[in-house]
């Protein structure tokens, strides 16, 4: 639909309802795709969507949690806000996991929830829930629209807040009577947010401090976090790393910000990171963190994290700097602006050749490893095969757990915004609906949802969407008939008492897929895989592949909980 530059309310003479104003505001924000689910309190909004013709592509996930995870996937791949609509009460509460997930992983999502009419708010009315109270701690900001004239401004603010600075979810709670109310006076959309002025440009003095520190450093390391994705700064990162031959290590979310096959890339650091990456963090004398929040899965025990290093931290959110790791050189800035400044002010760094050689040696001596049996499949090998059959170029989504770590370790990403995973909140059931959002965001790309057999069963109802919307999502179920990571921890730390972690009863995933008119297949051996998977991954049809892998495989190397990053177990002997 064509949007004219003049104010939208002049395009029609008819007085508009709140729901119409919302639709207009969404068009103004150039929203194309809406992930939603109708219900009583949003009936007026759904009526307005219906009347808006083909202005939007509405995605009817079969559970609100599916809607929001899909919106997160969409946001992760496009960098633009994912838009969600849900009804009041249970509709809104079903979104909570996804909102919290988007908050932890800094994803721009704008959520519209219906609310009961203003007159009955607070009376425990039918399908009433205190959405403001529930979502305040898990949103970047939230609004309840109290007056129709505020609605267009609030929508504009919501999109602005969600997508600028450190992105995050914003909830707009709209009472039903606001949606139906009609106002003849065109409301203003002007807004001012004096309390929200993200600092995007680095302080030149701080940049100088960092370049000075670089000139002194003998063992520098770059830690690339999700902030590189958000700041669209991958090219600058590559230029900066190459300019100074800086070894790069990644956080989980930072994967893809720097080419995984680059000689300066030492892989993911943290609990299941590579030996080289963790030792680089342990031994470095200058740590340049760009856009990572020093999450506990990365740092391990804080006292052993980069103990000898001067720490520089570039982050658009000042509250992240110094939160977990004492920081000598704080730089509050957007990642791109900071990297541009660093590229311009490049200091002559002393030779780091020796340091590189040392890390390269670690990389050679202690790579990721696994034992490959004769015929049975192990998940690591499966990931390598998925990588090779998709040319390492797919958008990969995951849930949380063992399969997520194997995907992170063995699906080496070369490009940004192709890695969609639930890092901070660690949400089971995230991967499959997120893949749907990713596929909608990038219709021409190959999207592979790598999910566990446990997580998939949490949100598999969204299989409905694959046929309905002709989405060629490839679902790879890493089926070890267990909640693998729970099982692994019980094996390692609870003397093999496998309490409720073995899923011995499972649906027939092939028939299940077929019941949704999606092709299903089962792969039980290496030979099976080599025969069937290339074709399944290369065509333009959705497919659910039930990959039976050995249950006892564990994710290694590992930093046990409470240990330092240098105390890895399961390193290649």
């Amino acid at each position, binding site marked *: 639909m064509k949007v004219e530059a003049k104010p939208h309310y002049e395009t029609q003479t008819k007085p508009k309802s709140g729901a119409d104003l919302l639709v207009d505001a969404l068009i103004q924000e150039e929203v194309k795709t809406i992930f939603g689910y109708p219900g009583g309190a949003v009936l007026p909004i759904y009526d307005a969507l219906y009347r808006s013709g083909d202005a939007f592509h509405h995605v009817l996930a079969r559970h609100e949690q599916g809607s929001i995870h899909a919106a997160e996937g969409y946001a992760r791949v496009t960098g633009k806000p994912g838009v969600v609509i849900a009804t009041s009460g249970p509709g809104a509460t079903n979104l909570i996991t996804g909102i919290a997930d988007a908050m932890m992983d800094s994803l721009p999502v704008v959520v519209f929830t219906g609310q009961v009419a203003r007159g009955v708010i607070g009376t425990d009315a039918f399908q009433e829930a205190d959405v403001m109270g529930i979502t*305040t*701690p898990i949103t970047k900001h939230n609004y309840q629209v109290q007056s129709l004239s505020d609605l267009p401004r609030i929508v504009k603010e919501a999109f602005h*807040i969600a997508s600028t600075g450190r992105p995050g979810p914003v909830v707009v709670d709209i009472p039903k009577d606001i949606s139906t109310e009609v106002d003849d006076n065109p409301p203003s959309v002007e807004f001012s947010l004096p*309390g*929200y002025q993200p600092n995007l440009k680095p302080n030149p003095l701080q940049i100088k401090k960092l370049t000075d520190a670089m000139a002194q450093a003998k063992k520098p390391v770059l830690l690339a976090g999700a902030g590189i994705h958000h700041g669209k700064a991958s090219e600058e990162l590559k230029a900066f790393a190459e300019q100074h031959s800086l070894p790069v290590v990644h956080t989980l979310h930072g994967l893809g910000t720097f080419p995984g096959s680059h000689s300066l890339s030492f892989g993911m650091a943290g609990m299941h990171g590579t030996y080289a990456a963790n030792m680089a963090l342990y031994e470095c004398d200058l740590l340049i963190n760009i856009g990572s929040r020093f999450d506990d899965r990365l740092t391990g025990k804080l006292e052993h994290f980069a103990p000898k290093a001067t720490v520089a931290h570039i982050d658009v959110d*000042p*509250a992240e700097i*110094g*939160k977990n790791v004492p920081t000598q050189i704080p730089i509050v800035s957007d990642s791109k602006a900071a990297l541009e400044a660093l590229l311009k002010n490049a200091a002559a760094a002393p030779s780091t050749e020796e340091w590189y050689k040392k890390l390269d040696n670690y990389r050679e001596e202690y790579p990721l490893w696994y034992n490959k049996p004769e015929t049975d499949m192990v998940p690591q090998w499966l990931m390598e095969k998925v990588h090779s059959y998709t040319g390492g170029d797919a958008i990969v989504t995951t849930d949380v757990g063992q399969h997520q770590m194997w995907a992170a370790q063995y699906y080496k990403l070369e490009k940004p915004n192709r890695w969609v995973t639930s890092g901070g909140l660690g949400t089971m059931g995230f991967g499959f609906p997120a893949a749907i959002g990713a596929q909608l965001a990038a219709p021409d790309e190959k999207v592979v949802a790598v999910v566990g057999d446990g997580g998939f069963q949490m949100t598999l109802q969204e299989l409905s969407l694959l046929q309905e919307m002709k989405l060629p999502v490839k679902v790879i179920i890493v089926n070890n008939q267990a909640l693998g990571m729970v099982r692994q921890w019980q094996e390692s730390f609870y003397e093999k008492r496998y309490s409720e972690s073995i899923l011995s009863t499972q649906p027939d995933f092939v028939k299940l897929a077929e019941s949704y008119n999606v092709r299903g297949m089962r792969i039980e051996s290496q030979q099976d895989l080599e025969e069937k998977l290339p074709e399944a991954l290369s065509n333009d049809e959705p497919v659910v592949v039930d990959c039976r892998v050995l249950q006892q495989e564990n994710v290694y190397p590992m930093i046990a909980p409470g240990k330092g990053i240098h105390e890895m177990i399961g390193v290649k002997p």
Partner: protein
Amino acid sequence: MRRIVTATVQNRSGVLNRVTGLLAKRQFNIESISVGRTEAEGISKMTFVVDVEDERKLEQLTKQLNKQIDVLKVSDITDKAIVASELALIRVVSNAQIRNEIQGIIEPFRASIIDISKDSLTVQVTGKHEKIEALIDLLRPYGIKELARTGLTAFLRGQQPQVAEMKNYSILK
């Protein structure tokens, strides 16, 4: 460390919930909190007295408060020259005989009796935390029937001594 932190906020619905929820979520311990309007329309001021472990925790607290969209400004004014007051209402058991005696006690505190009944009287006192504590201690033997306190409210004095600059002239440096 006991710190006095003020926050200038936009007076929107839910802002108090946002701020206290945030402090609770991040496990900050609030000793007292007071909120009220300011000279500017739509702007309120909150004064917190918080107990934090160390400087880093304090920095987190101010940064997290600052992140809130409705929060305009956050200051830790503990080490500044400030005027700070709280108000307490204290209902004490009394009769005609000891009324004068109580009057004598509260007078140096510049407190006043604002209500009298047959068997009790109510004292209103304003001022610093320590002063109010002292008065409460003195009145306790008479029997405190009811006590209500507002929490501290504070802002900077009109003129600040140039403390920060003096450090630079230290002969030890």
